[in-house]
Protein backbone atom coordinates (compact mmCIF):
# COMPACT_ATOMS: atom_id res chain seq x y z
CA UNK A 1 0.00 0.00 0.00
CA UNK A 2 2.80 2.37 0.98
CA UNK A 3 4.76 1.49 -2.14
CA UNK A 4 1.64 2.04 -4.26
CA UNK A 5 1.27 5.60 -2.85
CA UNK A 6 4.98 6.24 -3.35
CA UNK A 7 4.90 5.10 -6.98
CA UNK A 8 1.83 7.21 -7.86
CA UNK A 9 3.58 10.19 -6.19
CA UNK A 10 6.65 9.58 -8.34
CA UNK A 11 4.46 9.35 -11.46
CA UNK A 12 2.75 12.66 -10.56
CA UNK A 13 6.17 14.28 -10.18
CA UNK A 14 7.31 12.87 -13.53
CA UNK A 15 4.20 14.16 -15.36
CA UNK A 16 4.42 17.61 -13.68
CA UNK A 17 8.02 18.02 -14.83
CA UNK A 18 6.90 16.81 -18.29
CA UNK A 19 4.22 19.55 -18.49
CA UNK A 20 6.68 22.29 -17.47
CA UNK A 21 9.11 21.03 -20.12
CA UNK A 22 6.47 21.01 -22.90
CA UNK A 23 5.31 24.57 -22.12
CA UNK A 24 8.88 25.95 -22.10
CA UNK A 25 9.82 24.10 -25.29
CA UNK A 26 6.73 25.25 -27.23
CA UNK A 27 7.07 28.90 -26.18
CA UNK A 28 10.82 28.83 -26.87
CA UNK A 29 10.46 27.29 -30.36
CA UNK A 30 7.73 29.70 -31.47
CA UNK A 31 9.54 32.78 -30.13
CA UNK A 32 12.80 31.69 -31.76
CA UNK A 33 11.19 30.95 -35.16
CA UNK A 34 9.40 34.31 -35.11
CA UNK A 35 12.59 36.19 -34.13
CA UNK A 36 14.91 34.40 -36.59
CA UNK A 37 12.68 35.31 -39.54
CA UNK A 38 13.21 39.00 -38.63
CA UNK A 39 17.02 38.65 -38.65
CA UNK A 40 18.26 40.04 -42.01
CA UNK A 41 21.61 38.16 -42.38
CA UNK A 42 21.46 34.47 -43.39
CA UNK A 43 23.16 32.14 -40.86
CA UNK A 44 26.37 30.34 -41.95
CA UNK A 45 29.39 28.74 -40.20
CA UNK A 46 30.30 32.17 -38.75
CA UNK A 47 29.52 32.17 -34.98
CA UNK A 48 29.34 36.00 -34.91
CA UNK A 49 26.13 35.83 -36.98
CA UNK A 50 24.45 33.66 -34.32
CA UNK A 51 25.57 35.99 -31.53
CA UNK A 52 24.20 38.99 -33.44
CA UNK A 53 20.92 37.16 -34.07
CA UNK A 54 20.59 36.72 -30.28
CA UNK A 55 20.24 40.50 -29.98
CA UNK A 56 16.74 40.14 -31.45
CA UNK A 57 14.43 40.13 -28.37
CA UNK A 58 12.28 37.22 -29.66
CA UNK A 59 15.38 35.12 -30.35
CA UNK A 60 16.73 36.02 -26.88
CA UNK A 61 13.44 35.09 -25.19
CA UNK A 62 13.30 31.87 -27.21
CA UNK A 63 16.83 30.94 -26.11
CA UNK A 64 16.05 31.69 -22.44
CA UNK A 65 12.94 29.47 -22.59
CA UNK A 66 14.82 26.69 -24.41
CA UNK A 67 17.70 26.73 -21.88
CA UNK A 68 15.15 26.34 -19.06
CA UNK A 69 13.52 23.57 -21.13
CA UNK A 70 16.91 21.82 -21.43
CA UNK A 71 17.43 21.92 -17.63
CA UNK A 72 13.87 20.69 -17.05
CA UNK A 73 14.43 17.86 -19.53
CA UNK A 74 17.59 16.80 -17.69
CA UNK A 75 15.58 16.65 -14.47
CA UNK A 76 13.00 14.57 -16.38
CA UNK A 77 15.72 12.16 -17.58
CA UNK A 78 16.75 11.60 -13.96
CA UNK A 79 13.15 10.53 -13.18
CA UNK A 80 12.39 8.39 -16.25
CA UNK A 81 14.00 6.39 -19.10
CA UNK A 82 15.07 8.04 -22.35
CA UNK A 83 12.81 5.59 -24.21
CA UNK A 84 9.86 6.94 -22.15
CA UNK A 85 10.91 10.61 -22.31
CA UNK A 86 11.49 10.65 -26.07
CA UNK A 87 8.10 9.37 -27.32
CA UNK A 88 6.07 11.22 -24.68
CA UNK A 89 7.73 14.57 -25.39
CA UNK A 90 6.74 13.96 -29.05
CA UNK A 91 3.51 15.78 -28.10
CA UNK A 92 5.79 18.80 -28.52
CA UNK A 93 5.80 18.19 -32.31
CA UNK A 94 2.02 18.57 -32.37
CA UNK A 95 2.20 21.75 -30.29
CA UNK A 96 4.91 23.12 -32.61
CA UNK A 97 2.81 22.46 -35.75
CA UNK A 98 -0.21 24.07 -34.06
CA UNK A 99 1.77 27.16 -33.04
CA UNK A 100 3.30 27.31 -36.53
CA UNK A 101 -0.19 27.42 -38.04
CA UNK A 102 -1.85 29.79 -35.56
CA UNK A 103 0.92 32.25 -34.68
CA UNK A 104 3.35 32.00 -37.61
CA UNK A 105 0.58 31.54 -40.27
CA UNK A 106 2.20 28.45 -41.81
CA UNK A 107 0.26 26.18 -44.19
CA UNK A 108 -0.60 22.84 -42.53
CA UNK A 109 -1.85 20.13 -44.94
CA UNK A 110 -4.25 17.21 -44.18
CA UNK A 111 -1.22 14.91 -44.28
CA UNK A 112 0.38 16.92 -41.49
CA UNK A 113 -2.76 16.73 -39.33
CA UNK A 114 -2.96 12.94 -39.94
CA UNK A 115 0.63 12.67 -38.76
CA UNK A 116 -0.32 14.78 -35.73
CA UNK A 117 -3.04 12.24 -34.75
CA UNK A 118 -0.57 9.35 -35.07
CA UNK A 119 1.86 11.18 -32.80
CA UNK A 120 -0.89 11.65 -30.17
CA UNK A 121 -1.85 7.95 -30.35
CA UNK A 122 1.74 6.78 -30.07
CA UNK A 123 2.56 9.12 -27.21
CA UNK A 124 -0.55 8.01 -25.27
CA UNK A 125 0.40 4.34 -25.74
CA UNK A 126 3.90 4.93 -24.40
CA UNK A 127 2.61 7.17 -21.57
CA UNK A 128 0.53 4.25 -20.22
CA UNK A 129 3.66 2.15 -19.49
CA UNK A 130 5.84 2.42 -16.39
CA UNK A 131 8.25 5.40 -16.68
CA UNK A 132 11.40 3.83 -15.16
CA UNK A 133 12.62 0.30 -15.91
CA UNK A 134 16.35 0.52 -15.17
CA UNK A 135 17.42 0.06 -11.53
CA UNK A 136 19.30 3.14 -10.30
CA UNK A 137 23.04 2.61 -9.75
CA UNK A 138 22.75 3.46 -6.06
CA UNK A 139 20.20 0.67 -5.48
CA UNK A 140 22.55 -1.92 -6.93
CA UNK A 141 25.52 -0.93 -4.72
Amino acid at each position, binding site marked *: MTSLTASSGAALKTYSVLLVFLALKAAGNASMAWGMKQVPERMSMNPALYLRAMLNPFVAMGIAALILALLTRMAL*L*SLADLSFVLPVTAIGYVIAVFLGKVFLHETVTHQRWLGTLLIFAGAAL*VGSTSPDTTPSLEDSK
Partner: protein
Amino acid sequence: MKWVLVAVMVFATVLSDLLQSHEMKRAGEQSVSARGLARLLHVIAQRRLLILGIACNAVSFFAFMALVQTEPLSFAVPASAASFVLETLLAKFVLHERIGARRAMGALAVLAGVVLVGG
Protein backbone atom coordinates in the same frame (compact mmCIF):
# COMPACT_ATOMS: atom_id res chain seq x y z
CA MET B 1 21.37 23.13 -47.44
CA LYS B 2 18.27 22.52 -45.35
CA TRP B 3 18.98 18.75 -45.20
CA VAL B 4 22.59 19.43 -44.18
CA LEU B 5 21.24 21.47 -41.25
CA VAL B 6 18.76 18.68 -40.40
CA ALA B 7 21.60 16.11 -40.44
CA VAL B 8 23.84 18.22 -38.18
CA MET B 9 20.90 18.82 -35.83
CA VAL B 10 19.94 15.12 -35.65
CA PHE B 11 23.42 13.66 -35.07
CA ALA B 12 24.28 16.29 -32.44
CA THR B 13 20.94 15.62 -30.69
CA VAL B 14 21.46 11.84 -30.58
CA LEU B 15 24.93 12.16 -29.07
CA SER B 16 23.73 14.79 -26.61
CA ASP B 17 20.74 12.71 -25.44
CA LEU B 18 22.80 9.57 -24.88
CA LEU B 19 25.44 11.43 -22.85
CA GLN B 20 22.82 13.33 -20.83
CA SER B 21 20.68 10.29 -20.05
CA HIS B 22 23.71 8.18 -19.10
CA GLU B 23 25.14 10.85 -16.79
CA MET B 24 21.82 11.92 -15.21
CA LYS B 25 21.00 8.31 -14.27
CA ARG B 26 24.34 8.17 -12.47
CA ALA B 27 23.64 11.50 -10.73
CA GLY B 28 20.34 10.30 -9.22
CA GLU B 29 16.95 12.06 -9.09
CA GLN B 30 16.82 15.83 -9.58
CA SER B 31 13.98 18.28 -8.94
CA VAL B 32 13.01 21.55 -10.63
CA SER B 33 12.67 23.78 -7.53
CA ALA B 34 15.08 26.75 -7.28
CA ARG B 35 17.31 24.73 -4.94
CA GLY B 36 16.95 21.70 -7.17
CA LEU B 37 18.19 23.70 -10.19
CA ALA B 38 21.19 25.00 -8.23
CA ARG B 39 22.06 21.42 -7.30
CA LEU B 40 21.56 20.40 -10.94
CA LEU B 41 24.08 23.07 -12.08
CA HIS B 42 26.52 21.68 -9.50
CA VAL B 43 26.04 18.16 -10.91
CA ILE B 44 26.68 19.50 -14.45
CA ALA B 45 29.94 21.18 -13.38
CA GLN B 46 31.22 17.90 -11.90
CA ARG B 47 30.55 15.62 -14.86
CA ARG B 48 32.67 16.01 -18.00
CA LEU B 49 30.55 13.78 -20.24
CA LEU B 50 27.53 15.84 -19.26
CA ILE B 51 29.36 19.02 -20.36
CA LEU B 52 30.19 17.30 -23.69
CA GLY B 53 26.49 16.41 -23.98
CA ILE B 54 25.55 20.04 -23.47
CA ALA B 55 28.13 21.11 -26.11
CA CYS B 56 26.46 18.73 -28.60
CA ASN B 57 23.14 20.23 -27.61
CA ALA B 58 24.52 23.70 -28.45
CA VAL B 59 25.63 22.53 -31.93
CA SER B 60 22.17 21.06 -32.51
CA PHE B 61 20.67 24.32 -31.26
CA PHE B 62 22.61 26.54 -33.70
CA ALA B 63 21.61 24.25 -36.58
CA PHE B 64 17.98 24.64 -35.45
CA MET B 65 18.36 28.46 -35.33
CA ALA B 66 19.64 28.46 -38.93
CA LEU B 67 16.87 26.07 -40.00
CA VAL B 68 13.93 28.08 -38.61
CA GLN B 69 15.30 31.20 -40.27
CA THR B 70 14.45 29.84 -43.73
CA GLU B 71 12.02 26.93 -43.11
CA PRO B 72 8.59 26.82 -41.40
CA LEU B 73 8.49 25.76 -37.73
CA SER B 74 6.04 23.02 -38.77
CA PHE B 75 8.86 21.52 -40.91
CA ALA B 76 11.86 22.18 -38.63
CA VAL B 77 10.43 20.61 -35.47
CA PRO B 78 9.10 17.36 -37.05
CA ALA B 79 12.35 17.04 -39.07
CA SER B 80 14.23 17.00 -35.77
CA ALA B 81 12.36 13.77 -34.95
CA ALA B 82 14.49 11.95 -37.54
CA SER B 83 16.67 11.22 -34.52
CA PHE B 84 13.89 9.08 -33.07
CA VAL B 85 14.57 5.55 -34.32
CA LEU B 86 18.30 5.87 -33.85
CA GLU B 87 17.85 7.09 -30.27
CA THR B 88 15.35 4.41 -29.26
CA LEU B 89 17.68 1.71 -30.60
CA LEU B 90 20.65 3.23 -28.79
CA ALA B 91 18.60 3.58 -25.58
CA LYS B 92 18.03 -0.18 -25.76
CA PHE B 93 21.51 -1.33 -26.78
CA VAL B 94 23.77 1.28 -25.16
CA LEU B 95 21.77 2.41 -22.09
CA HIS B 96 20.21 -1.08 -21.63
CA GLU B 97 16.70 0.26 -21.14
CA ARG B 98 13.96 -2.36 -21.58
CA ILE B 99 11.72 -1.63 -24.59
CA GLY B 100 8.47 -3.63 -24.25
CA ALA B 101 6.10 -4.36 -27.17
CA ARG B 102 3.73 -1.56 -26.07
CA ARG B 103 6.48 1.04 -25.91
CA ALA B 104 7.96 -0.13 -29.22
CA MET B 105 4.52 0.12 -30.89
CA GLY B 106 3.94 3.59 -29.43
CA ALA B 107 7.37 4.72 -30.57
CA LEU B 108 6.69 3.40 -34.10
CA ALA B 109 3.32 5.18 -34.27
CA VAL B 110 4.98 8.43 -33.17
CA LEU B 111 7.65 7.91 -35.82
CA ALA B 112 5.06 7.28 -38.58
CA GLY B 113 3.17 10.40 -37.47
CA VAL B 114 6.30 12.49 -37.46
CA VAL B 115 7.20 11.31 -40.99
CA LEU B 116 3.72 12.31 -42.25
CA VAL B 117 3.89 15.68 -40.51
CA GLY B 118 7.28 16.37 -42.04
CA GLY B 119 6.32 15.14 -45.55
